[in-house]
């Protein structure tokens, strides 16, 4: 069964460094998302992406964050200058469409630790 994959599974970085989290959505999906989950908290929406454009972003998704689909398969989240509070599990998700019965399929996550 097709699945969303994410790399790396774990990333440790120093505060102020840039990180790029990578995702390979399911191949025929057109809508892509990033969410994050701070330890012990809710899963929070960051951004949605369709047709090579951001379609919606949350307040969390400030200028330090950017997303890109550099080729036909990868979808990346870049954090330009990491802060301690960026430590979280980051999930990529994708869906085929956007109708009322469209399921979002999540990847296994990248655990980011900012020291």
């Amino acid at each position, binding site marked *: 069964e097709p699945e969303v994959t994410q790399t790396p599974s774990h990333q440790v970085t120093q505060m102020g460094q840039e990180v790029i989290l990578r995702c390979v959505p399911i191949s025929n999906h057109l*809508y*892509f*998302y990033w*969410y994050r989950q701070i330890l012990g908290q*809710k*899963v*929070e*929406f960051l951004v*949605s*992406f*369709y*047709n090579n*454009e951001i*379609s*919606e972003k*949350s307040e969390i998704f400030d200028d330090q964050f950017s997303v890109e689909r550099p080729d036909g398969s990868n979808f990346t989240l870049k954090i330009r200058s990491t802060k301690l509070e960026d430590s979280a*599990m980051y*999930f990529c*998700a994708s*869906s085929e469409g*956007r109708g*009322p*019965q*469209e*399921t*979002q*399929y*999540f*990847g*296994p*996550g990248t*655990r980011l630790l900012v020291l």
Partner: protein
Amino acid sequence: SQQGEEDPQALSIQEGENATMNCSYKTSINNLQWYRQNSGRGLVHLILIRSNEREKHSGRLRVTLDTSKKSSSLLITASRAADTASYFCATEGGYTGGGNKLTFGTGTQLKVEL
């Protein structure tokens, strides 16, 4: 209360018993989805119920939706130790021009003991 709150926060049952988790939300929705998360792992999609549906079944899962009360319940019948996980409801509230963001609840931690 916030959009998507589950109760109970934690539930401990014996294997073979049924587990019921509830979710309440505040705004109108297009659908409500339930996900499972094993400790520190990814989110696994369990079931989606549309706003015009009242009940849906999938294997040992039964989901109900009451849009007048803005609530949903997830019933797991004949629970197994492998069902031990956190369960989240997530609501999808409308089209934004491209993709639909999910708003997640706080989750119920289910522990099924042998």
